[in-house]
Protein backbone atom coordinates (compact mmCIF):
# COMPACT_ATOMS: atom_id res chain seq x y z
CA UNK A 1 0.00 0.00 0.00
CA UNK A 2 2.83 2.33 -0.56
CA UNK A 3 1.76 4.25 -3.61
CA UNK A 4 2.29 7.97 -4.01
CA UNK A 5 -1.40 8.85 -3.73
CA UNK A 6 -1.81 7.10 -0.39
CA UNK A 7 1.31 8.82 0.97
CA UNK A 8 -0.06 12.29 0.46
CA UNK A 9 -3.51 11.29 1.71
CA UNK A 10 -1.81 9.96 4.83
CA UNK A 11 -0.02 13.22 5.42
CA UNK A 12 -3.32 15.05 5.19
CA UNK A 13 -4.92 12.71 7.71
CA UNK A 14 -2.10 12.98 10.22
CA UNK A 15 -1.63 16.73 10.09
CA UNK A 16 -4.56 17.84 12.33
CA UNK A 17 -3.26 15.69 15.16
CA UNK A 18 0.29 16.84 14.67
CA UNK A 19 -0.63 20.51 14.53
CA UNK A 20 -2.85 20.32 17.61
CA UNK A 21 -0.32 18.40 19.65
CA UNK A 22 2.44 20.72 18.55
CA UNK A 23 0.46 23.76 19.68
CA UNK A 24 -0.52 22.00 22.90
CA UNK A 25 3.13 21.38 23.62
CA UNK A 26 4.86 24.41 22.19
CA UNK A 27 2.57 27.27 23.21
CA UNK A 28 2.36 26.52 26.94
CA UNK A 29 6.01 25.53 27.05
CA UNK A 30 7.02 28.76 25.34
CA UNK A 31 4.89 30.73 27.75
CA UNK A 32 6.27 28.90 30.77
CA UNK A 33 9.81 29.60 29.64
CA UNK A 34 8.92 33.24 29.08
CA UNK A 35 7.21 33.66 32.44
CA UNK A 36 9.95 31.82 34.23
CA UNK A 37 12.21 34.76 33.42
CA UNK A 38 9.60 37.40 34.26
CA UNK A 39 8.57 38.99 37.49
CA UNK A 40 4.84 38.34 37.48
CA UNK A 41 2.60 38.29 40.50
CA UNK A 42 -1.13 38.24 39.87
CA UNK A 43 -1.73 40.15 43.10
CA UNK A 44 0.91 42.75 42.34
CA UNK A 45 0.84 43.24 38.57
CA UNK A 46 2.71 46.60 38.60
CA UNK A 47 6.03 45.09 39.61
CA UNK A 48 6.58 43.46 36.24
CA UNK A 49 9.82 43.10 34.32
CA UNK A 50 12.62 40.74 33.58
CA UNK A 51 13.69 38.67 36.49
CA UNK A 52 16.72 36.89 35.09
CA UNK A 53 17.30 33.61 36.87
CA UNK A 54 15.83 34.86 40.11
CA UNK A 55 12.60 32.88 39.73
CA UNK A 56 14.64 29.73 39.34
CA UNK A 57 16.82 30.52 42.30
CA UNK A 58 13.75 31.44 44.33
CA UNK A 59 12.14 28.14 43.48
CA UNK A 60 15.14 25.88 43.68
CA UNK A 61 16.66 27.45 46.77
CA UNK A 62 13.40 27.89 48.62
CA UNK A 63 13.27 25.63 51.67
CA UNK A 64 10.17 23.96 50.22
CA UNK A 65 11.84 22.74 47.04
CA UNK A 66 14.22 20.20 48.54
CA UNK A 67 11.46 18.79 50.69
CA UNK A 68 9.06 18.65 47.77
CA UNK A 69 11.62 16.82 45.66
CA UNK A 70 12.24 14.29 48.42
CA UNK A 71 8.49 13.90 49.00
CA UNK A 72 7.92 13.34 45.30
CA UNK A 73 10.62 10.70 45.24
CA UNK A 74 9.24 8.97 48.32
CA UNK A 75 5.75 9.02 46.87
CA UNK A 76 6.81 7.65 43.49
CA UNK A 77 9.26 5.05 44.76
CA UNK A 78 7.05 3.99 47.65
CA UNK A 79 4.06 3.42 45.43
CA UNK A 80 6.15 1.66 42.77
CA UNK A 81 7.71 -0.68 45.30
CA UNK A 82 4.38 -1.53 46.93
CA UNK A 83 2.47 -2.01 43.70
CA UNK A 84 5.11 -4.06 41.92
CA UNK A 85 5.85 -6.42 44.79
CA UNK A 86 2.25 -6.87 45.88
CA UNK A 87 1.22 -6.97 42.24
CA UNK A 88 3.55 -9.87 41.51
CA UNK A 89 2.37 -11.78 44.56
CA UNK A 90 -1.32 -11.23 43.81
CA UNK A 91 -0.83 -12.04 40.13
CA UNK A 92 0.88 -15.31 41.08
CA UNK A 93 -2.01 -16.12 43.39
CA UNK A 94 -4.77 -15.34 40.92
CA UNK A 95 -2.96 -17.23 38.17
CA UNK A 96 -3.34 -20.45 40.16
CA UNK A 97 -6.31 -22.61 39.29
CA UNK A 98 -9.03 -21.17 41.51
CA UNK A 99 -12.80 -21.06 41.56
CA UNK A 100 -14.22 -17.74 40.43
CA UNK A 101 -11.20 -16.24 38.74
CA UNK A 102 -13.45 -13.86 36.83
CA UNK A 103 -15.11 -12.27 39.87
CA UNK A 104 -11.77 -12.12 41.68
CA UNK A 105 -10.26 -10.21 38.76
CA UNK A 106 -13.17 -7.80 38.80
CA UNK A 107 -12.83 -7.15 42.53
CA UNK A 108 -9.08 -6.63 42.25
CA UNK A 109 -9.28 -4.26 39.28
CA UNK A 110 -12.04 -2.10 40.76
CA UNK A 111 -9.99 0.52 42.67
CA UNK A 112 -8.42 1.59 39.40
CA UNK A 113 -11.73 3.03 38.25
CA UNK A 114 -12.40 5.10 41.35
CA UNK A 115 -11.72 8.79 40.80
CA UNK A 116 -8.81 10.05 42.89
CA UNK A 117 -10.78 12.54 45.02
CA UNK A 118 -13.19 9.76 46.00
CA UNK A 119 -10.42 7.35 46.96
CA UNK A 120 -8.67 10.05 48.90
CA UNK A 121 -11.76 11.16 50.81
CA UNK A 122 -12.92 7.63 51.56
CA UNK A 123 -9.53 6.71 52.93
CA UNK A 124 -9.11 10.00 54.75
CA UNK A 125 -12.43 9.91 56.55
CA UNK A 126 -13.54 6.35 56.83
CA UNK A 127 -10.18 4.68 57.40
CA UNK A 128 -7.56 7.17 58.57
CA UNK A 129 -9.73 9.39 60.76
CA UNK A 130 -8.37 8.85 64.28
CA UNK A 131 -11.74 9.12 66.06
CA UNK A 132 -14.18 7.27 63.84
CA UNK A 133 -12.23 5.78 60.97
CA UNK A 134 -12.04 2.01 60.70
CA UNK A 135 -8.33 1.94 61.47
CA UNK A 136 -9.06 4.02 64.58
CA UNK A 137 -11.65 1.44 65.58
CA UNK A 138 -9.16 -1.31 64.99
CA UNK A 139 -6.59 0.41 67.17
CA UNK A 140 -9.22 0.90 69.89
CA UNK A 141 -10.18 -2.78 69.68
CA UNK A 142 -6.52 -3.74 70.05
CA UNK A 143 -6.21 -1.41 72.99
CA UNK A 144 -3.80 0.98 71.28
CA UNK A 145 -3.96 4.77 71.49
CA UNK A 146 -5.58 6.49 68.50
CA UNK A 147 -3.19 7.43 65.76
CA UNK A 148 -3.67 10.40 63.46
CA UNK A 149 -2.44 8.86 60.21
CA UNK A 150 -2.70 11.92 58.00
CA UNK A 151 -1.39 14.21 60.75
CA UNK A 152 1.51 12.12 61.96
CA UNK A 153 2.45 10.14 58.88
CA UNK A 154 0.94 12.15 56.03
CA UNK A 155 3.21 10.94 53.27
CA UNK A 156 2.98 7.27 54.21
CA UNK A 157 -0.80 7.61 54.30
CA UNK A 158 -0.87 9.18 50.86
CA UNK A 159 1.45 6.45 49.58
CA UNK A 160 -1.04 3.92 50.91
CA UNK A 161 -3.97 5.58 49.14
CA UNK A 162 -2.14 5.93 45.85
CA UNK A 163 -0.75 2.41 46.05
CA UNK A 164 -4.31 1.14 46.53
CA UNK A 165 -5.35 3.04 43.41
CA UNK A 166 -2.51 1.67 41.29
CA UNK A 167 -2.17 -1.85 42.65
CA UNK A 168 -4.92 -3.09 40.28
CA UNK A 169 -3.10 -1.71 37.26
CA UNK A 170 0.15 -3.41 38.24
CA UNK A 171 -1.59 -6.65 39.15
CA UNK A 172 -3.56 -6.84 35.93
CA UNK A 173 -0.56 -6.19 33.70
CA UNK A 174 1.65 -8.61 35.58
CA UNK A 175 -1.12 -11.19 35.51
CA UNK A 176 -1.45 -10.77 31.75
CA UNK A 177 2.28 -11.22 31.35
CA UNK A 178 2.20 -14.26 33.62
CA UNK A 179 -0.57 -15.87 31.60
CA UNK A 180 1.43 -15.49 28.41
CA UNK A 181 4.23 -17.59 29.88
CA UNK A 182 4.61 -20.81 27.98
CA UNK A 183 3.73 -23.62 30.34
CA UNK A 184 6.17 -25.93 28.61
CA UNK A 185 9.04 -23.72 29.70
CA UNK A 186 8.08 -24.29 33.33
CA UNK A 187 7.68 -27.99 32.72
CA UNK A 188 11.08 -28.12 31.07
CA UNK A 189 12.57 -26.36 34.07
CA UNK A 190 10.81 -28.80 36.36
CA UNK A 191 12.25 -31.71 34.38
CA UNK A 192 15.64 -30.06 34.71
CA UNK A 193 15.18 -30.28 38.45
CA UNK A 194 14.45 -26.64 39.34
CA UNK A 195 12.39 -26.30 42.53
CA UNK A 196 9.45 -23.84 42.57
CA UNK A 197 11.38 -20.90 44.02
CA UNK A 198 14.14 -21.31 41.43
CA UNK A 199 11.57 -21.65 38.68
CA UNK A 200 10.13 -18.32 39.82
CA UNK A 201 13.46 -16.51 39.86
CA UNK A 202 14.96 -18.05 36.72
CA UNK A 203 11.91 -18.41 34.48
CA UNK A 204 8.89 -16.48 35.71
CA UNK A 205 10.56 -13.28 36.84
CA UNK A 206 12.68 -12.82 33.69
CA UNK A 207 9.57 -13.47 31.63
CA UNK A 208 7.76 -10.73 33.53
CA UNK A 209 10.66 -8.27 33.46
CA UNK A 210 9.33 -6.48 30.43
CA UNK A 211 5.88 -6.12 31.97
CA UNK A 212 7.46 -4.88 35.20
CA UNK A 213 9.40 -2.28 33.23
CA UNK A 214 6.21 -1.14 31.55
CA UNK A 215 4.38 -0.93 34.88
CA UNK A 216 7.19 1.06 36.45
CA UNK A 217 7.49 3.49 33.59
CA UNK A 218 3.81 4.11 32.97
CA UNK A 219 3.03 4.46 36.64
CA UNK A 220 5.93 6.87 37.02
CA UNK A 221 4.39 9.22 34.47
CA UNK A 222 1.11 9.27 36.33
CA UNK A 223 2.63 9.28 39.82
CA UNK A 224 4.81 12.29 39.06
CA UNK A 225 1.58 14.20 38.52
CA UNK A 226 -0.33 13.02 41.61
CA UNK A 227 -2.39 15.98 42.71
CA UNK A 228 -6.03 15.35 43.62
CA UNK A 229 -5.21 12.91 46.40
CA UNK A 230 -2.95 15.43 48.13
CA UNK A 231 -5.35 18.32 47.66
CA UNK A 232 -8.26 16.63 49.39
CA UNK A 233 -6.36 14.79 52.12
CA UNK A 234 -3.62 17.00 53.51
CA UNK A 235 -3.35 19.99 51.16
CA UNK A 236 0.36 19.36 51.30
CA UNK A 237 0.52 19.53 55.06
CA UNK A 238 0.91 19.48 57.92
CA UNK A 239 3.33 22.28 57.05
CA UNK A 240 5.00 20.99 53.93
CA UNK A 241 5.25 17.39 55.09
CA UNK A 242 3.31 16.06 52.11
CA UNK A 243 3.98 18.74 49.50
CA UNK A 244 5.23 17.26 46.26
CA UNK A 245 6.65 19.07 43.27
CA UNK A 246 3.36 19.41 41.34
CA UNK A 247 1.63 20.51 44.49
CA UNK A 248 4.32 23.10 45.22
CA UNK A 249 3.88 24.55 41.74
CA UNK A 250 0.14 24.62 42.24
CA UNK A 251 0.63 26.43 45.55
CA UNK A 252 2.96 29.02 44.01
CA UNK A 253 0.62 29.62 41.10
CA UNK A 254 -2.91 29.49 42.43
CA UNK A 255 -2.43 30.10 46.15
CA UNK A 256 0.48 32.57 46.17
CA UNK A 257 -0.35 33.86 42.66
CA UNK A 258 3.37 34.02 41.93
CA UNK A 259 3.34 33.14 38.24
CA UNK A 260 7.05 33.68 37.66
CA UNK A 261 8.20 31.29 40.34
CA UNK A 262 5.53 28.76 39.47
CA UNK A 263 6.67 28.88 35.85
CA UNK A 264 10.26 28.29 36.88
CA UNK A 265 9.03 25.34 38.94
CA UNK A 266 7.15 24.12 35.90
CA UNK A 267 10.32 24.09 33.85
CA UNK A 268 12.09 22.16 36.57
CA UNK A 269 9.25 19.63 36.58
CA UNK A 270 9.35 19.37 32.79
CA UNK A 271 13.08 18.67 32.87
CA UNK A 272 12.71 16.03 35.56
CA UNK A 273 9.81 14.39 33.74
CA UNK A 274 11.78 14.30 30.52
CA UNK A 275 14.58 12.41 32.18
CA UNK A 276 12.05 9.75 33.08
CA UNK A 277 10.44 10.01 29.67
CA UNK A 278 13.63 9.12 27.84
CA UNK A 279 13.70 5.77 29.57
CA UNK A 280 10.04 5.14 28.86
CA UNK A 281 10.41 5.97 25.19
CA UNK A 282 13.26 3.52 24.85
CA UNK A 283 11.30 0.73 26.47
CA UNK A 284 8.15 1.26 24.46
CA UNK A 285 9.99 2.10 21.26
CA UNK A 286 11.60 -1.32 21.18
CA UNK A 287 8.17 -2.81 20.90
CA UNK A 288 7.00 -0.83 17.92
CA UNK A 289 7.90 -2.99 14.97
Amino acid at each position, binding site marked *: *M*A*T*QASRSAARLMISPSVILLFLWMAVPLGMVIYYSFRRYRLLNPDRAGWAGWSNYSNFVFSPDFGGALVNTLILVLGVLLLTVILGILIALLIDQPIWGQGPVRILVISPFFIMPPVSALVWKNMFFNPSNGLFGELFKYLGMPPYDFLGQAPLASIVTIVAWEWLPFATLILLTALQSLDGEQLEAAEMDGAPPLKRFFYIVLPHMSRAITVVVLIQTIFLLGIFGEILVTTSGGPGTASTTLPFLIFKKALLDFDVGTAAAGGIVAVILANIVAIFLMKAIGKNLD
Partner: protein
Amino acid sequence: MGKISLQKVEKRFGDVSVIPPLDLEVEDGEFVVFVGPSGCGKSTLLRLIAGLEDTTSGKIFIDGADATQLAPAKRGLAMVFQSYALYPHMTVRKNIAFPLKMAGVPQAEIEEKVDYAARVLNLSNYLDRRPGQLSGGQRQRVAIGRAIVRSPSAFLFDEPLSNLDAALRVNMRLEITELHQNLKTTMIYVTHDQVEAMTMADKIVVLQAGVVEQVGSPLELYHRPRNIFVAGFIGSPKMNFIEGAEAAKQDAKTIGIRPEHVTISKDSGAWKGTVTVSEHLGSDTFLHVETDLGLMTVRSGGDVDVHHGDTVWLTPEADKLHRFDDKGLRIA
Protein backbone atom coordinates in the same frame (compact mmCIF):
# COMPACT_ATOMS: atom_id res chain seq x y z
CA MET B 1 -8.39 -14.77 -22.16
CA GLY B 2 -5.46 -14.26 -19.89
CA LYS B 3 -2.18 -13.62 -21.62
CA ILE B 4 0.22 -11.72 -19.42
CA SER B 5 3.50 -10.37 -20.58
CA LEU B 6 6.16 -8.54 -18.65
CA GLN B 7 8.64 -6.36 -20.51
CA LYS B 8 11.77 -5.17 -18.72
CA VAL B 9 9.83 -5.04 -15.46
CA GLU B 10 12.01 -3.79 -12.63
CA LYS B 11 11.40 -3.22 -8.94
CA ARG B 12 13.63 -1.34 -6.55
CA PHE B 13 13.02 -0.40 -2.95
CA GLY B 14 15.18 2.67 -2.67
CA ASP B 15 18.65 1.56 -3.66
CA VAL B 16 17.89 -2.11 -3.29
CA SER B 17 17.06 -3.85 -6.52
CA VAL B 18 14.58 -6.59 -5.72
CA ILE B 19 13.89 -7.53 -9.29
CA PRO B 20 16.34 -6.51 -12.00
CA PRO B 21 14.71 -5.86 -15.40
CA LEU B 22 12.91 -9.05 -16.33
CA ASP B 23 10.95 -10.36 -19.32
CA LEU B 24 8.33 -13.05 -19.02
CA GLU B 25 5.46 -14.40 -21.09
CA VAL B 26 2.49 -16.19 -19.56
CA GLU B 27 0.27 -17.75 -22.21
CA ASP B 28 -3.52 -17.85 -22.00
CA GLY B 29 -4.73 -20.80 -19.95
CA GLU B 30 -1.30 -21.73 -18.72
CA PHE B 31 -0.56 -22.83 -15.16
CA VAL B 32 2.68 -21.02 -14.34
CA VAL B 33 4.52 -21.54 -11.07
CA PHE B 34 7.08 -19.10 -9.72
CA VAL B 35 9.37 -21.08 -7.49
CA GLY B 36 12.49 -20.20 -5.55
CA PRO B 37 13.92 -19.99 -2.06
CA SER B 38 12.35 -17.45 0.29
CA GLY B 39 13.39 -13.90 -0.44
CA CYS B 40 13.95 -14.60 -4.13
CA GLY B 41 11.41 -11.98 -5.19
CA LYS B 42 8.71 -14.35 -6.39
CA SER B 43 6.00 -12.81 -4.21
CA THR B 44 7.08 -9.32 -5.21
CA LEU B 45 6.82 -10.33 -8.84
CA LEU B 46 3.29 -11.60 -8.26
CA ARG B 47 2.33 -8.39 -6.46
CA LEU B 48 3.70 -6.37 -9.36
CA ILE B 49 1.43 -8.28 -11.71
CA ALA B 50 -1.48 -7.82 -9.29
CA GLY B 51 -0.82 -4.09 -9.07
CA LEU B 52 -0.29 -4.14 -5.32
CA GLU B 53 3.21 -2.79 -5.89
CA ASP B 54 4.21 -0.11 -8.38
CA THR B 55 6.81 -1.11 -10.97
CA THR B 56 9.95 0.99 -10.92
CA SER B 57 10.25 0.66 -14.69
CA GLY B 58 9.11 -1.60 -17.48
CA LYS B 59 5.64 -2.53 -18.68
CA ILE B 60 3.04 -5.13 -17.84
CA PHE B 61 0.61 -6.17 -20.57
CA ILE B 62 -2.55 -8.09 -19.83
CA ASP B 63 -4.28 -9.42 -22.94
CA GLY B 64 -2.24 -7.08 -25.03
CA ALA B 65 -3.26 -3.91 -23.17
CA ASP B 66 -0.78 -1.92 -21.11
CA ALA B 67 -1.84 -2.46 -17.48
CA THR B 68 1.25 -1.01 -15.82
CA GLN B 69 -0.60 1.97 -14.35
CA LEU B 70 -3.97 0.28 -13.79
CA ALA B 71 -5.40 -0.07 -10.27
CA PRO B 72 -5.39 -3.68 -9.01
CA ALA B 73 -9.14 -4.08 -9.33
CA LYS B 74 -9.13 -2.91 -12.95
CA ARG B 75 -6.71 -5.57 -14.15
CA GLY B 76 -9.26 -8.36 -14.16
CA LEU B 77 -7.07 -10.54 -11.97
CA ALA B 78 -8.05 -12.35 -8.79
CA MET B 79 -5.65 -13.15 -6.00
CA VAL B 80 -5.58 -15.81 -3.30
CA PHE B 81 -3.40 -14.73 -0.39
CA GLN B 82 -1.15 -16.82 1.79
CA SER B 83 -3.14 -15.75 4.86
CA TYR B 84 -6.38 -16.19 2.83
CA ALA B 85 -7.21 -12.57 3.78
CA LEU B 86 -10.85 -13.41 4.40
CA TYR B 87 -13.00 -10.67 5.90
CA PRO B 88 -13.47 -11.97 9.43
CA HIS B 89 -16.68 -10.06 10.10
CA MET B 90 -18.50 -11.36 7.01
CA THR B 91 -20.08 -14.75 6.46
CA VAL B 92 -18.69 -17.06 3.82
CA ARG B 93 -21.52 -15.99 1.53
CA LYS B 94 -20.68 -12.30 1.96
CA ASN B 95 -16.99 -12.96 1.56
CA ILE B 96 -17.51 -14.64 -1.77
CA ALA B 97 -20.05 -12.05 -2.87
CA PHE B 98 -17.87 -9.08 -1.92
CA PRO B 99 -16.07 -8.53 -5.25
CA LEU B 100 -19.38 -8.84 -7.12
CA LYS B 101 -21.00 -6.36 -4.76
CA MET B 102 -18.12 -3.97 -5.34
CA ALA B 103 -18.62 -4.33 -9.07
CA GLY B 104 -22.29 -3.47 -8.70
CA VAL B 105 -23.55 -6.82 -9.99
CA PRO B 106 -27.34 -7.25 -9.49
CA GLN B 107 -28.31 -9.18 -6.35
CA ALA B 108 -29.90 -12.10 -8.21
CA GLU B 109 -26.80 -12.67 -10.28
CA ILE B 110 -24.61 -12.44 -7.16
CA GLU B 111 -26.60 -15.19 -5.47
CA GLU B 112 -26.43 -17.39 -8.52
CA LYS B 113 -22.68 -17.02 -8.83
CA VAL B 114 -22.05 -17.50 -5.12
CA ASP B 115 -24.15 -20.67 -5.12
CA TYR B 116 -22.28 -21.95 -8.13
CA ALA B 117 -18.89 -21.27 -6.55
CA ALA B 118 -20.01 -22.84 -3.29
CA ARG B 119 -21.12 -25.98 -5.14
CA VAL B 120 -17.87 -26.26 -7.05
CA LEU B 121 -15.86 -25.84 -3.86
CA ASN B 122 -18.04 -27.95 -1.55
CA LEU B 123 -18.90 -24.97 0.61
CA SER B 124 -22.68 -25.00 0.28
CA ASN B 125 -23.20 -26.08 3.88
CA TYR B 126 -20.94 -23.40 5.28
CA LEU B 127 -22.26 -20.31 3.54
CA ASP B 128 -23.62 -18.73 6.69
CA ARG B 129 -20.57 -19.36 8.84
CA ARG B 130 -17.82 -16.91 9.50
CA PRO B 131 -14.19 -17.57 8.55
CA GLY B 132 -13.29 -18.05 12.22
CA GLN B 133 -15.54 -21.11 12.35
CA LEU B 134 -13.90 -22.85 9.40
CA SER B 135 -10.94 -25.18 9.14
CA GLY B 136 -7.82 -24.14 7.27
CA GLY B 137 -8.78 -26.05 4.15
CA GLN B 138 -12.28 -24.57 4.12
CA ARG B 139 -10.88 -21.06 4.50
CA GLN B 140 -8.63 -21.76 1.59
CA ARG B 141 -11.60 -22.77 -0.50
CA VAL B 142 -13.50 -19.63 0.47
CA ALA B 143 -10.54 -17.57 -0.67
CA ILE B 144 -10.57 -19.44 -3.97
CA GLY B 145 -14.34 -18.98 -4.20
CA ARG B 146 -13.93 -15.26 -3.80
CA ALA B 147 -11.52 -15.37 -6.72
CA ILE B 148 -13.65 -17.62 -8.94
CA VAL B 149 -16.85 -15.55 -8.86
CA ARG B 150 -15.15 -12.66 -10.55
CA SER B 151 -14.41 -14.80 -13.61
CA PRO B 152 -10.96 -13.22 -13.73
CA SER B 153 -8.70 -13.44 -16.76
CA ALA B 154 -6.07 -14.94 -14.47
CA PHE B 155 -5.75 -16.23 -10.92
CA LEU B 156 -2.80 -15.24 -8.78
CA PHE B 157 -1.90 -17.56 -5.90
CA ASP B 158 0.58 -16.41 -3.27
CA GLU B 159 1.85 -19.49 -1.41
CA PRO B 160 -1.73 -20.57 -0.80
CA LEU B 161 -0.94 -23.91 0.80
CA SER B 162 1.85 -22.98 3.18
CA ASN B 163 -0.49 -22.63 6.16
CA LEU B 164 -2.02 -26.07 5.75
CA ASP B 165 -0.83 -29.35 7.20
CA ALA B 166 0.88 -31.88 4.96
CA ALA B 167 -2.10 -34.12 4.21
CA LEU B 168 -4.41 -31.22 3.44
CA ARG B 169 -1.78 -29.67 1.25
CA VAL B 170 -1.77 -32.71 -1.01
CA ASN B 171 -5.58 -32.57 -1.27
CA MET B 172 -5.70 -28.87 -2.03
CA ARG B 173 -2.95 -29.31 -4.59
CA LEU B 174 -5.17 -31.74 -6.44
CA GLU B 175 -8.22 -29.52 -6.08
CA ILE B 176 -6.44 -26.51 -7.51
CA THR B 177 -5.09 -28.58 -10.40
CA GLU B 178 -8.59 -29.90 -11.12
CA LEU B 179 -9.97 -26.38 -10.90
CA HIS B 180 -7.46 -25.31 -13.51
CA GLN B 181 -8.46 -28.16 -15.78
CA ASN B 182 -12.14 -27.22 -15.46
CA LEU B 183 -11.83 -23.47 -15.74
CA LYS B 184 -8.93 -23.42 -18.18
CA THR B 185 -8.07 -19.97 -16.87
CA THR B 186 -4.52 -18.69 -16.61
CA MET B 187 -3.06 -19.28 -13.16
CA ILE B 188 0.10 -17.86 -11.68
CA TYR B 189 1.14 -19.66 -8.57
CA VAL B 190 3.94 -18.72 -6.19
CA THR B 191 5.55 -21.30 -3.94
CA HIS B 192 8.86 -22.18 -2.37
CA ASP B 193 8.02 -25.86 -2.52
CA GLN B 194 9.48 -27.49 -5.62
CA VAL B 195 7.14 -30.48 -5.22
CA GLU B 196 4.13 -28.18 -5.68
CA ALA B 197 5.84 -26.62 -8.65
CA MET B 198 6.63 -29.98 -10.28
CA THR B 199 3.18 -31.47 -9.71
CA MET B 200 1.02 -28.51 -10.71
CA ALA B 201 2.81 -26.44 -13.31
CA ASP B 202 2.60 -26.35 -17.07
CA LYS B 203 5.53 -23.99 -16.89
CA ILE B 204 7.91 -23.34 -14.04
CA VAL B 205 9.81 -20.09 -13.53
CA VAL B 206 12.75 -20.61 -11.20
CA LEU B 207 13.80 -17.41 -9.48
CA GLN B 208 16.80 -16.56 -7.40
CA ALA B 209 17.52 -13.07 -6.07
CA GLY B 210 14.97 -11.64 -8.51
CA VAL B 211 16.67 -13.21 -11.50
CA VAL B 212 14.94 -15.80 -13.67
CA GLU B 213 17.27 -18.81 -13.60
CA GLN B 214 15.24 -20.95 -15.99
CA VAL B 215 11.80 -21.17 -17.54
CA GLY B 216 10.43 -24.48 -18.71
CA SER B 217 8.15 -27.42 -18.21
CA PRO B 218 8.70 -29.50 -15.07
CA LEU B 219 10.40 -32.31 -16.96
CA GLU B 220 12.59 -29.92 -18.93
CA LEU B 221 13.87 -28.50 -15.66
CA TYR B 222 14.34 -31.97 -14.27
CA HIS B 223 16.19 -33.38 -17.23
CA ARG B 224 18.02 -30.34 -18.50
CA PRO B 225 18.62 -27.85 -15.67
CA ARG B 226 20.33 -24.81 -17.12
CA ASN B 227 22.69 -24.34 -14.16
CA ILE B 228 23.74 -25.74 -10.81
CA PHE B 229 21.15 -23.71 -8.90
CA VAL B 230 18.20 -25.11 -10.84
CA ALA B 231 19.73 -28.61 -10.78
CA GLY B 232 19.98 -28.45 -7.00
CA PHE B 233 16.60 -26.80 -6.45
CA ILE B 234 14.44 -29.07 -8.60
CA GLY B 235 14.17 -32.71 -7.59
CA SER B 236 13.93 -34.41 -4.22
CA PRO B 237 16.15 -35.70 -2.71
CA LYS B 238 18.61 -33.14 -4.03
CA MET B 239 21.04 -33.87 -6.82
CA ASN B 240 24.55 -34.96 -5.75
CA PHE B 241 27.35 -32.67 -6.92
CA ILE B 242 30.94 -33.76 -7.37
CA GLU B 243 33.91 -31.53 -8.08
CA GLY B 244 37.60 -32.13 -8.65
CA ALA B 245 39.30 -34.99 -10.46
CA GLU B 246 36.17 -37.04 -10.95
CA ALA B 247 34.47 -34.03 -12.63
CA ALA B 248 37.58 -33.24 -14.66
CA LYS B 249 37.40 -36.74 -16.14
CA GLN B 250 34.12 -35.55 -17.70
CA ASP B 251 35.64 -32.24 -18.85
CA ALA B 252 33.54 -30.31 -16.31
CA LYS B 253 34.07 -28.16 -13.23
CA THR B 254 31.20 -29.89 -11.49
CA ILE B 255 29.19 -32.96 -12.29
CA GLY B 256 25.79 -33.76 -10.87
CA ILE B 257 23.89 -37.00 -10.58
CA ARG B 258 20.40 -37.41 -9.16
CA PRO B 259 19.98 -39.90 -6.30
CA GLU B 260 17.63 -41.99 -8.45
CA HIS B 261 20.27 -42.31 -11.16
CA VAL B 262 22.82 -44.03 -9.01
CA THR B 263 22.82 -47.82 -8.77
CA ILE B 264 24.02 -49.45 -5.64
CA SER B 265 25.82 -52.73 -5.28
CA LYS B 266 27.35 -54.62 -2.41
CA ASP B 267 30.34 -55.93 -4.29
CA SER B 268 31.43 -53.73 -7.17
CA GLY B 269 31.01 -50.31 -8.77
CA ALA B 270 32.62 -46.97 -9.50
CA TRP B 271 32.71 -45.35 -6.06
CA LYS B 272 33.21 -47.12 -2.77
CA GLY B 273 31.49 -45.83 0.33
CA THR B 274 29.96 -46.57 3.71
CA VAL B 275 26.28 -46.25 4.50
CA THR B 276 25.74 -43.71 7.30
CA VAL B 277 21.97 -43.61 7.35
CA SER B 278 19.41 -45.70 5.55
CA GLU B 279 15.82 -44.42 5.43
CA HIS B 280 13.38 -47.20 4.54
CA LEU B 281 10.16 -45.70 3.27
CA GLY B 282 8.69 -48.94 2.03
CA SER B 283 8.31 -47.76 -1.54
CA ASP B 284 11.83 -46.37 -1.67
CA THR B 285 15.00 -46.46 0.33
CA PHE B 286 17.09 -43.33 0.75
CA LEU B 287 20.69 -44.10 1.51
CA HIS B 288 23.24 -41.61 2.70
CA VAL B 289 26.64 -42.89 1.73
CA GLU B 290 29.98 -41.48 2.82
CA THR B 291 32.35 -41.80 -0.16
CA ASP B 292 35.80 -40.46 -0.97
CA LEU B 293 34.01 -37.87 -3.11
CA GLY B 294 31.83 -36.68 -0.25
CA LEU B 295 28.43 -37.57 1.14
CA MET B 296 26.11 -38.93 -1.55
CA THR B 297 22.40 -39.57 -1.47
CA VAL B 298 21.07 -42.58 -3.29
CA ARG B 299 17.50 -43.47 -4.00
CA SER B 300 16.92 -47.15 -4.30
CA GLY B 301 14.14 -49.72 -4.33
CA GLY B 302 12.08 -50.34 -1.23
CA ASP B 303 13.49 -53.78 -0.59
CA VAL B 304 17.18 -52.98 -0.66
CA ASP B 305 18.80 -54.75 2.25
CA VAL B 306 21.47 -52.25 3.22
CA HIS B 307 21.99 -50.77 6.65
CA HIS B 308 24.15 -48.45 8.66
CA GLY B 309 27.82 -49.32 8.42
CA ASP B 310 27.59 -51.49 5.32
CA THR B 311 30.19 -50.99 2.61
CA VAL B 312 28.65 -50.37 -0.80
CA TRP B 313 29.69 -49.45 -4.32
CA LEU B 314 27.87 -46.72 -6.25
CA THR B 315 27.65 -46.44 -10.02
CA PRO B 316 26.13 -43.42 -11.79
CA GLU B 317 24.13 -43.96 -14.95
CA ALA B 318 26.46 -42.42 -17.48
CA ASP B 319 23.79 -40.86 -19.69
CA LYS B 320 22.14 -39.21 -16.67
CA LEU B 321 25.21 -37.24 -15.60
CA HIS B 322 24.84 -33.47 -15.65
CA ARG B 323 27.97 -31.47 -16.41
CA PHE B 324 28.51 -27.84 -15.40
CA ASP B 325 31.29 -25.42 -16.30
CA ASP B 326 33.19 -23.11 -13.98
CA LYS B 327 30.35 -20.54 -14.16
CA GLY B 328 27.92 -23.17 -12.97
CA LEU B 329 26.24 -23.34 -16.39
CA ARG B 330 25.21 -26.58 -18.02
CA ILE B 331 27.54 -28.04 -20.59
CA ALA B 332 25.25 -29.37 -23.35
